[in-house]
């Protein structure tokens, strides 16, 4: 365990940050550990976590999906527009749309052999326009109050349906990456694309699956958010992409691909959620929130970069 920390200081940093913030916020405001606050922490974990998990999969396979944030807005609007009479139709349509756009991202990237940063940027702009068009100038609200109430239920007074679904998905993706052929292909394709192809990994299906999962998870995040809030707007999901990227990298996912696991991403997401939740509780002003978010990322990036490596090397020399 301790050797693992020494090899991977970013992992140590994540845990230190999480524990330190937990202690500070508990001391500053005893409501921090109250069931009601843990419940809302779970809600924000669900939204950011699903987008970050999908993005992390594309990063793992050596690509990058910029369209996740815009997908959250579009899928929420599809969910409520088509799910007014039958919620299943809306959910199915939103998820199918998410998977379809993910497949489009994957196929464009594979066929054109250009960086996915480029293809998904185009899709992102397209989706944000589509979201404004769907919204039609005003927010969309949901009249299926029973479903909204059902999704605002609490289990064991801290778990929401959304947070349970998210935790289950994190676990499922973690297991799938570890034991399935597809999971190993994803990691292999991200580690060294050419070597993976030569050793018989199905790189195309790995890349395609990662993008489909990313679209699907972002669409799920948007649909669940819309059901829980009972409304949807084209502004949902703004900033979500950058936060998800931060969470993934804080969680140990490397931009170069192949490195990092869903469990780390979950901790990265939790660090950002705890930070913002705690700062909200103690009534920090918005500049302070922005500065601390930036500072946490900067520390993570420094620990991951050369300064962290020098520390490790100097310790190894002893």
């Amino acid at each position: 365990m301790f050797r693992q920390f020494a090899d991977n200081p970013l992992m140590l940093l994540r845990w230190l940050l999480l524990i330190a913030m937990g202690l500070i916020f508990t001391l500053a405001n005893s409501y921090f550990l109250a069931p009601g606050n843990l419940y809302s922490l779970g809600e924000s974990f669900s939204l950011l976590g699903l987008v970050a998990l999908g993005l992390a999969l594309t990063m793992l396979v050596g690509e990058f999906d910029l369209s996740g944030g815009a997908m959250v807005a579009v899928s929420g609007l599809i969910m409520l527009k088509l799910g007014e009479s039958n919620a299943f139709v809306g959910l199915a349509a939103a998820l199918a749309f998410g998977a379809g756009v993910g497949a489009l991202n994957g196929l464009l990237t594979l066929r054109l052999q250009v960086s996915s940063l480029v293809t998904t940027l185009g899709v992102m702009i397209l989706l944000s326009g589509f979201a404004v068009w769907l919204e039609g100038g005003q927010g969309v609200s949901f009249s299926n109050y029973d479903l909204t109430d059902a999704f605002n239920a609490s289990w064991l007074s801290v778990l929401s349906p959304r947070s349970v679904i998210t935790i289950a998905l994190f676990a499922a993706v973690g297991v799938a990456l570890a034991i399935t052929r597809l999971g190993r292909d994803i990691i292999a394709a991200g580690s060294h694309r050419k070597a993976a192809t030569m050793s018989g990994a199905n790189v195309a299906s790995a890349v395609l699956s990662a993008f489909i999962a990313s679209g699907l998870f972002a669409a799920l995040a948007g649909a669940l958010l819309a059901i829980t809030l009972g409304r949807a707007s084209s502004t949902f999901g703004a900033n979500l992409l950058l936060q998800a990227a931060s969470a993934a990298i804080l969680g140990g996912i490397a931009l170069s691909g192949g490195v990092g696991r869903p469990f780390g991403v979950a901790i990265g997401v939790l660090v950002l959620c705890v930070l913002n939740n705690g700062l909200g509780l103690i009534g920090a002003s918005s500049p302070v929130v922005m500065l601390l978010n930036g500072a946490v990322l900067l520390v993570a990036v420094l620990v991951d970069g050369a300064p962290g490596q020098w520390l490790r090397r100097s310790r190894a020399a002893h």
Partner: protein
Amino acid sequence: MSTQSRSAPLPGPLSGLFAPARVQATVIQIATVAMFLLACLTVDNYATASNIASILYAASTVGIAAVGLASVTISGNLFALSLGSTAAFASIIYIQLSGLGVIGALLGSLALGVVFGLIQGIVVGLLRCNAIITTIAASSLIAGLATAFSGGRTVLATGGPSWLGNGAILPGIPWQAVIFLVVVVVAELLLQRSRTGWELRLRGTNPAAAELAGLRTRRVVVLSYVLAGAGAAMAGALIAAQSGTGNMRVGADLDFSAIAAMLVGGVAISGGRGRIIDVAAGTLFLAVLTNILLVNNFAYEVQLMIKGLAVLVAVTAGALLSRKKR
């Protein structure tokens, strides 16, 4: 023309225009001119001074930010996401310093951009930290500082608009477009004709080889972020000069607009390929396209969707055309 170039190489200087690495840039340049001429012929009152000026105002701010950004991309560090918040802070500084006159306020905003760019350049280039995450962190820090500095409020300029805000050198050619032109020419010469520019492009083509060959790779990476910071700050100052206000909403979508303009123009996101004139062409292409949609009363969301499609089509065409030639 493209069929001709595929069947037989064009003679003389034209052959280079349709080389695999240049074909997307060439197509976009031709398309921009064709689109503009077509609009002049088909849309009433299109080629008026005021409409051309409005295209150039939109193109100048995004374009200057995109030129700075392109130096980061061409040097092999993908892109920066701190341009929007840098522009916002610069717009606030520009208004706060407007008592010093246009040049003083502009220099003050530029200094801010240079300092922020330098810090990011040091973190990425010398401390070898992840380029994308460094700029996301910087974006958050800069936005926090700017909000603290301005108290989250919009700052308003005193006195009337300046020559930089709405002055024109000729009818239809605002001063801001002249500044854009100067920035493009200077940056194009820096990147294509100087030793530093040559090192910057080679760093993007192959970072490991550039380092082994003894090129000053760290210096050029730091320089690229300084240019990106300066470009973003200049864009923010120009927006502030136009509107007479500075706030956090300035440059809200500058990051992705600049990336889109650069990619459409034919700069490769993976580094090493693309020129500053391509960035200018991509910016003008998107500005003319948006303007045509605007004068035809298309809604904002349709403009966004067509812009997204334009990015996809340009990139697809570029990828397919350059592959056919291989």
